[in-house]
């Protein structure tokens, strides 16, 4: 029997939403780790019962929780994220040097093959890896020590490494995205990195050809076509057909090309979803209407998906890690809002309904398709 498990991270705890393959009736468990910010929770593709959760508060710092039974029970594992060597400085908002300081884990990306191997993207931007189920964390310092690292600056939300994509077809290829530095690629399992941002244009950057300094909000790939990447940048929706070497804009007829998340349909590599947000100063949907936009042409031509989503007086945001898809035959799309709703569509976005309406602000949504 197939089913779906949706891992929801919120400002005040984690929630686990479960349903069978029909996705009509949902069970809700939580809050787990009540009162803590859950930036991200994600399951291992190699063992769906292995879950990792990033739990933090400004008071008591970072915890990593692990479950080996699909969220029935949890164990706090290692929480020491020490930058390798003398961390040095990056640029602060005003352009002055600022020491690299660990704040929190934004994103956890379990290995595609080994449940005990998991990557962590952190603020201040760096990539860590654990090979023992989260007990110990080692920085992959080639990223932070890239020659451009001392020039990276934070975005408004902090200087976070928020996206980690593992190429399922090329051993050792990893993409990482940092606000506001850009996208980086490693072809040697994270030892060395280079920026892959050619073609991005960012207002306010003096040099339009700048190698870094771009506020990438999220990147996404389809596992069967990993050289094609889609990006929601601060402004602009972008596409690369050569593993990030070159990017071109595919915002097309979107009502606004500002936004945070971007996802690819589970079975259609050219079907892409974004949630347009009014602007960088107005973090809510245009006209108070929550619309997910879908392109079935790999970008440029977009259609609004509205059936079941609030079309008046809606002023929520959808954050960068708060949209995901399942891989059931009719692909499901899931969107979590800062208003505490998680909306689901079991028909590729045609119709939507809320699974839950009144959670704390949703920070992340990750979906596991269970067999």
């Amino acid at each position, binding site marked *: 029997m197939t089913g779906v498990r949706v891992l929801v991270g919120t400002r005040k705890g984690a929630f686990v939403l479960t349903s069978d393959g029909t996705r009509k009736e949902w069970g809700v468990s939580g809050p787990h780790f*009540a*009162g*803590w910010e859950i930036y991200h929770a994600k399951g291992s593709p190699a063992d769906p019962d292995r879950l990792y959760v990033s739990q933090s*508060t*400004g*008071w*008591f*710092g*970072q*915890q990593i929780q692990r479950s080996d039974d699909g969220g029935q029970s949890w164990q*706090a594992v290692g*929480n*020491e994220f*020490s930058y390798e060597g003398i961390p040095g400085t990056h640029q602060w908002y005003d352009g002055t040097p600022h020491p690299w300081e660990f704040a929190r884990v934004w994103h956890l990306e379990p290995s595609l093959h080994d449940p005990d191997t998991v990557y962590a993207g952190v603020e201040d931007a760096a990539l860590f890896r654990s090979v023992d189920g989260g007990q110990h964390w080692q920085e992959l310092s080639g990223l932070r020590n890239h020659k451009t690292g001392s020039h990276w600056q934070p975005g408004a939300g902090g200087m976070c490494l928020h996206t980690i994509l593992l190429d399922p077809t090329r051993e050792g290829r990893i993409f990482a995205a940092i606000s506001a530095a850009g996208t980086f690629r490693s072809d040697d399992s994270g030892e060395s990195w280079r920026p892959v941002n050619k073609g991005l244009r960012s207002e306010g950057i003096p040099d339009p050809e700048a190698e870094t300094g771009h506020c990438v909000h999220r990147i996404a790939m389809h596992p069967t076509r990993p050289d094609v990447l889609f990006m929601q940048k601060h402004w602009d929706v972008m596409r690369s057909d050569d593993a990030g070497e070159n990017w071109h804009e595919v915002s097309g007829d979107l009502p606004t090309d500002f936004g945070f998340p971007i996802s690819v349909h589970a079975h259609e590599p050219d079907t892409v979803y974004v949630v347009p947000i009014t602007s960088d100063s107005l973090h809510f949907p245009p006209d108070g209407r929550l619309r997910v936009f879908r392109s079935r042409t790999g970008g440029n031509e977009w259609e609004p998906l509205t059936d079941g989503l609030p079309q008046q007086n809606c002023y929520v945001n959808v954050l960068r890690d708060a949209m995901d898809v399942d891989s059931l035959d009719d692909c499901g799309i899931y969107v979590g809002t800062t208003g505490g709703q998680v909306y689901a569509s079991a028909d590729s976005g045609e119709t939507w309904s809320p699974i839950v309406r009144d959670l704390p602000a949703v920070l992340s949504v990750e979906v596991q398709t269970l067999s």
Partner: protein
Amino acid sequence: MIRVELPAHLRTLAGVSGEVTLDLRAEAPAVVTLGDALDALEARYPVLRGTIRDHRTGCRRAFVRFFACMQDLSHEPADFPLPEPVLAGSEPLLVIGAMAGG
């Protein structure tokens, strides 16, 4: 035995419901310091490492405060001797999450 009162989130994390008691005199009979108490607390409950003091520097986290016997010990060094009533177990060492946020 000394008594340590933890904030709610750290009690949950450590899996305790009330005060924590630590036998410090047996381990460090000469002078028992604030740092000794925190070391013993973290040794008993490893999950608390990094939640009260920074892993790397050992410094108190910014939004955590220490009080005992109506005194604010937050800015005292790690080798600050704990007050006698704390050592005697008649007063607890309080670990407080600062009031901040909403």
